[in-house]
């Protein structure tokens, strides 16, 4: 099923034509109006270039970034194609209240990147320390992912066309038990619960033999609903070039994904397939209006259309809910199947065929314009510039869903009866009842999401070299406002920053930023904050005593204070005493009614509010000890303080209302990053290897934690997303074992239930025995990647691996690891590994329960797994058609590349039966792509 390849001829695919990502000459854009090289910067910046970008056939740049960079933790999420997007953290978790998301910007503006295609991206910078994030006001504290799109080139012309086709595959297709095994399992669970069996022996026989498939069915819902592969096509046209006073870059891109629905074409006139398509166009222009005046215009627009089966039903959720024996796909009378326990609206085949479809149309427009005027006529080195940006996003839904009719069946098969008797449900008058309605398709359509964004900024720059001293300084003012749908989320921010970069003799470097920032989110009189940052650099290899001019060594250090305007729960009125006007009534009246509602005290006002502050420290070494090898090491430390936290743990109930937020939270984090990049060329053979390793660790220093009754419950001192749970010490063997063990208070226990350790020694097991178990399930502490690339006479291979460590999974997926309870499905894996007499030794999971079992389904070590993994993110085999041959034969063609890619094809994992990153109900894909690209 692997297919084709491409020819491309762009310069961008060559592994050694751009400076290595760690090369001192690599650009390091921290957001100023001048971009210095890595050699010149004193900040911690990781650069991702086209050498590793666009090699995953990703739908957008964020999916493309998965695994890449140094100090960036990108975590893949599952789900249907249209909504899959990763989660990012920079240098791990650094604060409380879930405000750990880094800032993502595109060409200097905060922008949603879900529709930015990888093709149009030139570089991505991960901005990590104080110097690198100093120009982003209140928004940079969690680090910045800065995306820079491609620009034109003077006096050139280049057109490239590429086409990819890929085949997706559900990476872990869940395996649920067949109908007969379900019958055994539910009977076993009910027996454990002291309930009568659901199926009598002769009914189990019917399930096994499938003698009454309409009454005792066996449906493999996964296979009946989903096919094995999805398809993906992408075509891209890029135009890049310019004349003497003008340069341009333009891209037109179209992609189309056709999902996994097995029977999408059962209806006249429409498909019910999961589909996603997008067209996007970008035009980046640089126009020299006069010899001293530059205008830059960037315009990006995209339209997406995503379609899902009716009501956007979560079909995968149904897989984990509806067992094989629940009901047939269709009842004997031809209506869709359903039952009293599992309603026909849970019939995934019916939902994927009979419920019509639902569409979302999203449109994005990103526009910005910059005018830069050289003011050398006033004084040499002086310039000024103004930028304006206007972005817009809207989603319009179109709900064409319909409902369908389905038919539950009543079955009686008492002992001694030869065959089952069955009937359709009847109403009080004895008439047969059909459930559901065969409705017409809906026609609802409206805008349900929109986001407007406005930016304006201006700056005065001074850039001049005096003998050995290079001086660059800029004074900049920014204003931005965002206005999404809903209330209490319009934000206005301003930022005034003065950044200076000094370079003495290319040996001594200084970055100094003084910034003052304001945010409408913060309380009156606390809206403005000051942020100083300083960075120092020493390029030792430029010293006179340095013997080898080809070897490079630089030390750098930075420190600074970055502010944040994060608010807990997005509660904007924390600074006033709040009241609540909702609640029931008190029946004062003589007829037990009232003309009054409730007025009660809400949250207490925060006295003397301030805002969250990050003190960031970083030291780094960049070196090139041997030819072709670049190395970079960073060590960082950060203290986040003044974090808004609830003071409920501090004040007694005597305050009589919800405790105020106070700026009392403190989190320390620290870590290191090591990056290596080695590439050489020997004649026709070239290779490049590289990798990044990052480690982060955080600790809550203060969270105004309530005084805990037992030390094991204390969270302060642990990391931000530490998991707490019980320590499982096996399963109860028998009643005697239960009698001899401390009482477990969650629910009545029986043999085969999980036995916990009495952590606090109070002779009973309850939530006071919770203790820190495992690590974080939110963000790994160790994140690493490495890549290998080699090319010989145009034939090349590129492989990219990524892994994590110190990362924990909690197996709580219903149906898969937590079977049967709440009327859910049971996986083959759970069935085989449950405790039962005869399987005491090998059991991984407790005895089956059909009813909610509070004892077993606590968070405990039994459900934790080490989530460390190593994934082969992508591997590419390609052939670049020799230029000489192209030039001599196809004169117009400058380059051609054919390639085959495997994406997310292999992973090591301790998470059974599932992907280590996405082990919930939402599947992830692996895919095989064939592509070609041609450059003219």
């Amino acid at each position, binding site marked *: 099923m692997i297919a084709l390849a491409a020819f491309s001829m762009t310069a961008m695919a060559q592994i050694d034509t751009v400076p290595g990502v760690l090369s001192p000459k690599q650009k390091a854009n921290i957001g100023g109006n001048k971009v210095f090289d890595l050699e010149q910067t004193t900040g911690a910046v990781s650069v991702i270039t086209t050498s590793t970008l666009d090699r995953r056939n990703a739908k957008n740049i964020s999916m493309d970034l998965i695994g890449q960079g140094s100090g960036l933790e990108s975590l893949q999420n599952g789900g249907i194609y249209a909504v899959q997007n990763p989660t990012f953290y920079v240098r791990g978790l650094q604060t409380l209240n879930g405000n750990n998301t880094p800032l993502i910007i595109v060409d200097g503006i905060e922008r949603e990147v879900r529709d930015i295609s990888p093709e149009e991206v030139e570089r991505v910078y991960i901005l990590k320390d104080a110097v690198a994030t100093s120009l982003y006001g209140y928004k940079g504290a969690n680090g910045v992912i800065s995306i820079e799109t491609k620009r034109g080139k003077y006096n050139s012309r280049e057109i490239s066309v590429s086409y990819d086709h890929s085949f997706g595959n559900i990476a872990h297709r869940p395996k649920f038990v067949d109908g007969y095994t379900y019958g055994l399992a539910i009977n076993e669970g009910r027996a454990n619960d002291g309930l009568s069996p659901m199926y009598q022996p002769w009914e189990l026989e019917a399930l096994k033999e499938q003698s009454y498939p309409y009454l005792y069915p066996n449906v493999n819902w996964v296979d009946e609903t989903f096919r094995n592969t999805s398809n993906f096509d992408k075509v891209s046209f890029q135009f890049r070039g310019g004349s003497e006073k003008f340069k341009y870059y333009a891209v037109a891109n179209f992609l189309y994904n056709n999902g996994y629905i097995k029977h999408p074409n059962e209806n006249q006139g429409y498909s019910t397939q999961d589909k996603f398509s997008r067209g996007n166009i970008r035009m980046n222009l640089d126009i020299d*209006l*006069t010899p001293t*005046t530059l205008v830059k215009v960037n315009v990006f627009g995209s339209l997406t259309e995503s379609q899902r089966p009716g009501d956007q039903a979560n079909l995968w959720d149904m897989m984990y809910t509806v067992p094989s024996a629940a009901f047939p796909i269709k009842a004997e009378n031809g209506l869709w199947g359903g039952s009293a326990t599992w309603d026909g609206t849970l019939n995934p085949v019916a939902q994927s065929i009979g419920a019509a479809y639902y569409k979302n149309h999203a449109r994005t427009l990103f526009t910005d314009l910059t*005018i830069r*005027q050289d003011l050398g006529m006033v004084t040499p080195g002086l310039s*000024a510039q*103004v930028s*304006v940006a206007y972005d817009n996003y809207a989603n319009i839904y179109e709900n064409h869903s319909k409902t369908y009719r389905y038919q539950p069946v009543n079955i009686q098969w008492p002992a001694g009866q030869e065959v089952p008797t069955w009937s359709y449900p009847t109403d009080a008058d004895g008439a047969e009842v059909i459930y559901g309605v065969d409705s017409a398709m809906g026609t609802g359509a409206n805008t349900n999401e929109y986001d407007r964004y406005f930016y*304006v900024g*201006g700056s005065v720059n001074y850039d001049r070299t005096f003998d050995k001293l290079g001086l660059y300084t800029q004074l900049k*003012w920014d*204003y931005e406002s965002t206005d999404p749908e809903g*209330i*209490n989320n*319009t934000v*206005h921010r*301003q930022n005034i920053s003065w950044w200076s970069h000094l370079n003495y003799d290319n040996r001594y470097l200084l970055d100094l930023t003084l910034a003052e920032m304001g945010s*409408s989110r913060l309380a009156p009189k606390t*809206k403005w904050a000051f942020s100083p940052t300083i960075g120092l650099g020493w390029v030792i290899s430029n010293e006179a005593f340095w013997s080898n001019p080809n070897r490079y060594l630089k030390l750098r250090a930075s420190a600074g204070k970055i502010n944040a305007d994060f608010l807990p729960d997005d509660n904007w*009125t924390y600074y*006033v*005493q*709040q*009241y*609540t*006007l909702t*609640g*029931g*009534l*008190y*029946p*004062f*009246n*003589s*007829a*037990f*009614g*009232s*003309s*009054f*509602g*409730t*007025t*009660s*005290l*809400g949250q*207490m006002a925060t*006295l003397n509010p301030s805002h969250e502050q990050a003190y960031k420290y970083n030291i780094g070494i960049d070196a090139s000890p041997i030819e072709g090898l670049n190395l970079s090491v960073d060590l960082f430390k950060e203290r986040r303080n003044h974090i808004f936290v609830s003071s409920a*743990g*501090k*004040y*007694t*109930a*005597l*305050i*009589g*209302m919800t405790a*105020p937020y106070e700026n009392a939270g403190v989190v320390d984090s620290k870590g290191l990053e090591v990056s290596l990049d080695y590439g050489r060329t020997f004649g026709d053979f070239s290779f490049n290897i590289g990798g990044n390793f990052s480690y982060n660790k955080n600790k809550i220093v203060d969270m105004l934690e309530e*005084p805990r*009754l037992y030390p094991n419950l204390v969270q302060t001192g642990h990391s931000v997303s530490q998991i707490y749970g019980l320590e499982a010490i096996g399963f109860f063997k028998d009643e005697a074992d239960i009698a001899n063990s401390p009482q477990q208070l969650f629910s009545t226990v029986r043999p085969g239930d999980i036995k916990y350790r009495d952590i606090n020694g109070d002779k009973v097991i309850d939530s006071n025995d919770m203790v820190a178990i495992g690590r974080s399930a939110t963000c790994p502490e160790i994140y690493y990647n490495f890549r290998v690339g080699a090319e010989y006479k145009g034939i090349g291979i590129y492989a990219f691996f990524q892994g994590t460590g110190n990362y924990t999974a909690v197996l709580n997926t219903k149906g898969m690891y937590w079977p049967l309870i709440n009327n859910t499905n049971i996986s083959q894996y759970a069935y085989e590994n449950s405790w039962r007499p005869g399987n005491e030794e090998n059991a991984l999971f407790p005895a089956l329960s059909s009813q909610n079992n509070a004892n077993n389904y606590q968070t405990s070590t039994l459900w934790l797994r080490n989530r460390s993994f190593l994934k082969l993110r992508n591997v590419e085999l390609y052939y670049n058609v020799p230029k000489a041959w192209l030039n001599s034969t196809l004169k117009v063609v400058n380059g051609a590349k054919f390639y085959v890619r495997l994406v997310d094809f292999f992973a090591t994992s301790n998470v059974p039966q599932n992907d280590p990153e996405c082990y919930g109900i939402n599947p992830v894909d692996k895919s095989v792509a064939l592509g070609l690209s041609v450059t003219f």
Partner: protein
Amino acid sequence: MKNKFLLIPVAALMLTVSSCKEDMDYHEYAIVDKDFVELNFSNVGGFMTQLYKHVEYDFGNFSNGAMQASATDESEYSIGGNAIEDFYNGGWSAANPKPAIWNNMYAGIAEANRFLEDFQGLKFEELELNPDYQKQMFRYENYKYEARFLRAYYYFTLVRTYGGVPLIKQTMPADETNKLSRNTSDEVYDYIFSELNEIKDLIIVDYSKLGDMALGESETGRAGKIAVLALRARAALYWASPLFNPNNDTERYKIAADYHKELLDECKEQGKKIINKYSDLWAADNFSKPTIAPELLFCYRYYSSASGDNLVETNNYPVGIDGGRGGNCPTQNLVDAYETKNGLSIKDPNNSQYDPNDPYKNRDPRLGMSIAVNGEAWPTYQTNKLQTFYGGLNAQPTSGGTTTSYYLKKLCNGTINLSASSTKKVAFHTYLNFRMGGAYLDYAECLFKATGSPTAVLAGHEMSANDAVFMVRNRNGVKMPKFPETLSNDEWWTKYCNERFVELCFEGHRFWDVRRWKEGSKYFTSITRTIINQDSEGNLTYFQQIVPREWDEKMNLFPIPQTERAKNPNLEQNPGW
């Protein structure tokens, strides 16, 4: 000039800068702050809703279905594992402190303080032209007295539970509350009395007689003068009781007796009286019906929907009844407390009216009204008879089946049918916080303790303790004989306690009465269950089973929650915890 390209954007920039300054103060939300609340009468009046809702009541909400009664010898909760068991199984501690009263009452106090401080003297000028302005202002001016009454009630609830607690009389910053230490119980009672004394002649006397100021339906659910006097009288009785009166200062009982006389005089003035039918006290229309309402002095009205609720029925209907799951099952101790009609205890060997083989015959009529026994049709709508014998439809071993062979009728509205097809699933319920029966019994206790005699009449009063008890026993439909004048003080006290147990069962008294008398070791060390066996011929045999319960003198007061003391070390713990 090349610079012209800059002029336009620079000018635009200047304009934007100036406009952006205001943007920093921009907010699109409506801040529900003081100014917003003050806009109209109904926002401000809404405070009263919230304050009344803090008033105690117990329809099984005390502990997830269990009533406080099940922590006493009144009943046992039939569904195992309920946290109510902590009160008698050793689970109760400063780490498991049952903090609901602590939390709720201080929430109410904070709200009352805030209302009394920040929402006074409002003129609602914008509403002056409304036709009902004067009437609304009249109500608004009364709110402060209602708020002070309720705050005093919260403090009474607290002092009864914890002894002395920190007195917070005005709004206070959070860090100051964290430094407070406990006042003495006398200081708290003093504060309650001084507050109630100040407002008793200021608060509206009768909400159904507002004359010119009447507006819409009369708000009879609000606290009036009688409520103030009733609370003052009850608080005084507690203040005089052994738990809070270690030196046995009988003067306190005299004050309490005087307070009760003032209450009963006012009640008489307003037509309050002991009503005829005991079981009507918890009828759905008890708050309004002219034949019932006169006994109710101040009672919490539970509200869940415009047509009513079934909280107490859901929590107490027998298993085997649609929607029933067992619940707070009256003990044999309580059943035994009901005398026979001749006024003798069933334990009296000379009692000829009592037949152990037909134990419910000839009993105080209140037994039949309060407690469902084997063989009777209950709930009222049912025609099937209860089977509370072991193995019966409504009994053990079915989970939740009664453990004592009895089910609770009191407070329940037996016409409510919880089955899915029922047309009568809900009704109104008004709890019995203060009523005439309780007032007379309280009065009797004050008189007895003040005079040292059941028959003596205290100077300035018109009845003896025994007369006051008889007011309750002489209710039409009860008509139990008066206690003989020949009883010794001890005998009389025993019968008084018994009468109180019977008359006020499941009204939230027993738990506190036994504590304030410091008699837990007498009453709370065990309960008695009855187990009925039925043989194949349908003959019943009754067995009694004594179930021990843990009791310790420290339990007279609740522990201060350990976490509260960790936050504020100035909060001293109660003795023994």
